């Protein structure tokens, strides 16, 4: 369980010489095995928030606990970081080694895991992201989606409980995004908690829970259907909703209510058909 209690984070803005508050007295609980998407426009504080979960950012007020471990306690730093793994945006800037398996081994090596155990973890992690065939490949020869899957494997090899993806699909093409989303969903089904930061509403719609951030605070925290039924609010936050949900909303405004909120074209067509007949 990740618990944020009245947590704040700020940094010094060098230009205006002021403290800029990016996370503002925020409280939040994320359970093991959950699939949470975090939405918010650039600068809403979502990236700063998740970096509080693995001690990259240290709170300036309030506390964050990961499985009851205090993130300000230096002694448990590596314990927390191996529990809360993070995949970043640019696939090129997070792979360390020249060979895939060496890169995946990087985390467990740092944790001092015995070599034979590392071997097993590397193989398992690469199989879990469906990249075992590329065990000897050089990262720069892989596609963006493949590189991100290697980055995920590198995190899995630390055997974490929580996997954070900080806009990890932003630089990928649709095929790469699908690869990463499929992998993440599969891992979630196997019990991994996933925290997904994304700009793509269709991706967020696949989560169990969507958190919308604004000005360093939580604006909405509900299941995707509830969140994406608030079309006007989402647009006012410079966000969007999946086109299926938007169409249903426009129809509802015109007097044709097709019932519950739909997130996919299939769901829309089904609900529409029922309503028309």
């Amino acid at each position, binding site marked *: 369980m990740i618990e944020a209690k009245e947590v704040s984070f700020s940094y010094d803005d060098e230009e205006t010489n002021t403290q800029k508050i990016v996370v503002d007295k925020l409280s939040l609980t994320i359970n093991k095995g959950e699939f949470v998407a975090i939405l918010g426009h650039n600068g809403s504080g979502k990236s700063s928030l998740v970096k509080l979960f693995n001690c990259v950012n240290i709170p300036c007020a309030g506390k964050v606990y990961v499985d009851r471990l205090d993130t300000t306690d230096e002694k448990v730093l590596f314990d927390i970081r191996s529990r809360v793994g993070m995949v970043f945006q640019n696939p090129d800037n997070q792979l360390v080694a020249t060979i895939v398996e060496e890169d995946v081994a990087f985390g467990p090596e740092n944790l001092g895991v015995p070599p034979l155990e590392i071997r097993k973890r590397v193989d398992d992690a690469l199989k879990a992201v469906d990249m075992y065939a590329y065990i000897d490949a050089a990262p720069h020869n892989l596609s963006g989606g493949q590189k991100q899957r290697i980055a995920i494997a590198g995190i899995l090899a630390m055997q974490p409980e929580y996997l954070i993806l900080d806009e990890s699909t932003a630089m990928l093409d649709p*095929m790469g995004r699908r690869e990463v989303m499929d992998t993440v969903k599969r891992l979630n089904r196997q019990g991994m908690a996933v925290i997904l930061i994304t700009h793509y509403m269709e991706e967020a719609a696949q989560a169990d829970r969507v958190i919308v951030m604004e000005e360093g605070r939580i604006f909405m925290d509900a299941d995707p259907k509830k969140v994406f039924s608030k079309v006007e609010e989402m647009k006012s936050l*410079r966000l969007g909703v999946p086109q299926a949900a938007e*169409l249903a909303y426009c129809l509802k405004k015109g007097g044709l209510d097709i019932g519950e909120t739909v997130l996919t074209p299939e769901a829309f*067509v089904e609900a529409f058909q029922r309503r028309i007949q």
Partner: protein
Amino acid sequence: MIEIRHLTHTYTSGIHKTDAIRDVNLTIADGELMGIIGHTGSGKSTLIQHLNALLKPTSGQVLLDGVDIFDSKAIALKEVRKNVGLVFQYPEYQLFEETVYKDIAFAPKNYGCSEEEIKERVLAAAKTVGLKENLLDKSPFALSGGQKRRVAIAGVLAMNPKVLVLDEPAAGLDPFGREKILYEVEKIRAQRGISVVLVSHSMEDVAAHADRIAVMHDGEMKMCGTPAEIFAQDQVLEEMRLDVPQITKILNALRKMGIAVPEDIFKVQEAADWILQNVPFTKG
């Protein structure tokens, strides 16, 4: 007008020869907004680098207003690049000057414009992409991601090209930023009356903004036509694993149900309006 004729580009590495693009034919009319869609590795990047002669074809031609751009006797390389402006993906990574003004002025300076003309062009380009004048004296590195990208696009616009080619201008931006930059691309076309080539892997963006769409797959141009013509073939697009926009999927399903939705609707609001007017339903 740009005419691409039987364009083929073959890469050689070691003993392997691969066709990055194969026998591509395409004509882009003056003032047209042409969308090019395809996966990474489909050859779209290779294709657009031929349009301003950054790459030379293995065979085939590119004609700019009837002149072969690879014929150095007919037209100088620099002249080609001035007329066909190319904005790469993530263009903000090419900024290098101390101020936004100087960075936008880089191209006109390379083409030997007078100080006055440079100023005129920089101001015009900045205005077209929606950069406020008070930003011009700032360092480009102090700007936000979206603003940096505008500076980079203005830097190419300042050449006053006849054709503007943009590779994924909205990549990596949030939904609001994407919409805004694509709106600016349309504005550029409207204000300057130039041809625009918009490369993207987002079907939604291209569908909403392009006059015609060319689909690249495995180095070949598989389809070319109006968005309505392209999206009518959703089966083929799915086979190429290209994403069809949700709205198109829905409307295609409605058509199968026997509701005759016109082919040229790609925007959610338009679709809703049409359905409300044409589909009989009981209120409540």
